[in-house]
């Protein structure tokens, strides 16, 4: 199947692109366009052109990973398009086809899957207090460090039910609920996506010469977590 055709299978693509008249209203307020070499108008232009080679190039590029999915573009488009939704369709396809590992930003999907993805399935939350390790989150500052180190007491102080049974913030999600989430992932293709990310990342890590691919994978993950080639915004 042609790439364009595959994109049209995605409901979000259908919603996101009616017909673009290249007015640039999306780029004008796009936070990513301001700090990255990124132009949502051109993304719409490329997919609209149905040019297969350009779409493939796009799927392999950093460009589709710059968007912050704030959806500001949706508000203003005079044709009711939403580049954010187009981006989501492109990202899904890029992961399905393994193209995401071709770009620096795309390779970061593995680390996100490992942290956020596994949190969702095994803990029922996207983010956990344990994730906010000061070395990985220096911006959380001294207060963040204090919270992290004393999390049990601090959360207790503000009436959160950290790791507790029953209701409340940060409660432990009951096992039966986690099982249901697991089933949902199983049935709806959530794990398929996870496996694709793992599979293609492994191939890439190998071709990039990382050695611990079959065991911990930490070098590649650290690499993708911290690497920035500095070429993402034009002077």
């Amino acid at each position, binding site marked *: 199947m042609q790439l364009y055709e595959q994109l049209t299978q995605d409901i979000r693509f259908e919603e996101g692109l009616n017909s673009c008249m290249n007015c640039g209203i999306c780029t004008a307020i796009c*936070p990513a366009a301001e700090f990255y070499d990124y132009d949502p108008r051109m993304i719409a232009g490329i997919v609209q052109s149905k040019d297969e080679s350009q779409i493939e190039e796009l799927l392999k590029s950093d460009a589709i990973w710059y968007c912050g999915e*704030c959806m500001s573009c949706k508000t203003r488009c005079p044709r009711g398009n939403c580049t954010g939704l187009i981006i989501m369709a492109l990202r899904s396809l890029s992961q399905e086809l393994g193209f995401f590992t071709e770009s620096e930003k795309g390779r970061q999907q593995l680390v*996100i899957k490992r942290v956020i993805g596994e949190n969702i399935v095994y803990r029922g939350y996207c*983010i956990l207090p344990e994730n906010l390790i000061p070395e990985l989150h220096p911006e959380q500052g001294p207060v963040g460090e204090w919270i992290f180190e004393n999390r049990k007491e601090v959360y207790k102080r503000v009436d959160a039910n950290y790791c507790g049974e029953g209701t409340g913030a940060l409660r432990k999600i009951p096992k*039966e*609920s986690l099982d249901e*989430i697991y*089933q949902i992932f199983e049935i709806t293709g959530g794990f398929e*996506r996870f496996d694709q990310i793992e599979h293609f990342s492994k191939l890439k890590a190998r071709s990039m010469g990382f050695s611990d691919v079959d065991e911990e994978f930490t070098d590649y993950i650290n690499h993708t977590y911290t690497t920035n080639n500095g070429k993402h915004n034009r002077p």
Partner: protein
Amino acid sequence: MQNEGKQKIWKDYQKEIADDHYFYVRSCIRQNFFPGSEQTFLKILRAELNKDIFENPHHTTCSGIGYHSDIVPFDTIQTIVARQFALMTEAGYRNLAVSCITSFGIYNEIIETWKEFPNELEKIRNYLKKATGREFKIPQNVSHASDIIYKFREDIFARKKYSLTNHETGKPLKIVEHIGCHYAKMFPGKGVGGAEFPHVLVGMIESWGGEVIDYPERRHCCGFGFRQYLVMSNRGYSISNSKKKFESMEPYRPDAIASNCPGCPMFLDRWQYVIEEMEGKTYGQNGRGIPVLTYEEMAGLVLGYDPWDMGMQMHQTDVEPLLDKMGIEYNPDLKYAGKDGKQIGQVKMAGCKC
């Protein structure tokens, strides 16, 4: 600035907000950073407004952060959301009160998708049935927690202990509002006041005696950007967007920033610290940062709740300048104390305390 245009907009975008019997869904981000705010919300609704708000321990994340960083497929998140709806249906509730803006956006997006593509709804019903055996009804009313506070803002003010004014001069405090992008940018009709001039926080601030500052980059995203913050090497994006906002609001000398989003107040709070570390620049008065509040904290302060009970010690940027202006009595010694009044650990001030 004139009011005529805003009045028309606020009139055009009035959404329906259920007035009682809510099924509450929490936020993964907020419970990490502002667990006290969620507790404050429940307290206000139950203790001050006598509302019925139900909590179910079985609800999970909506998986929105995963979805918006594209590791969770659309079918998966729809089914997870359908499960939340099933829990609500099973508990006998029809009104959803959402703590998180990302979730709020996702609930709206999914409900709208189902309206547009009924086949999709059927597919999800099947998925959910197959995975969990559950069935669900689409909520009658989806309101963000800030919508509910907005709806009852006058009732809250009737029970006020403080107002958003400088207790010395009596002048209104200057507050800038920051609305989460997913609140109304996707569906302007789902937000109070629409996408361009949302009234949800403006209404609260003005009702509670404050003055709202409309600054040029008011509508700009805080810069969370999901994958942009989650991965360290992308965080330049996040901080740069927040910085852009600070630069733009600075000339107005705001007394506080109020937000209705889970991530934004944390970012607007923490990035002030980072910018001071990186560039030595502070945006508030007297070389301190601009205090950042959640709307629940703001409401709690007005109602006279103890700031440390609400978790305001978990802010990196000091809130004391605001508390002092409002004339709020608080015990500085208990800031980092536990329930028992004993100090918890040690906050390393690291030379910077915005």
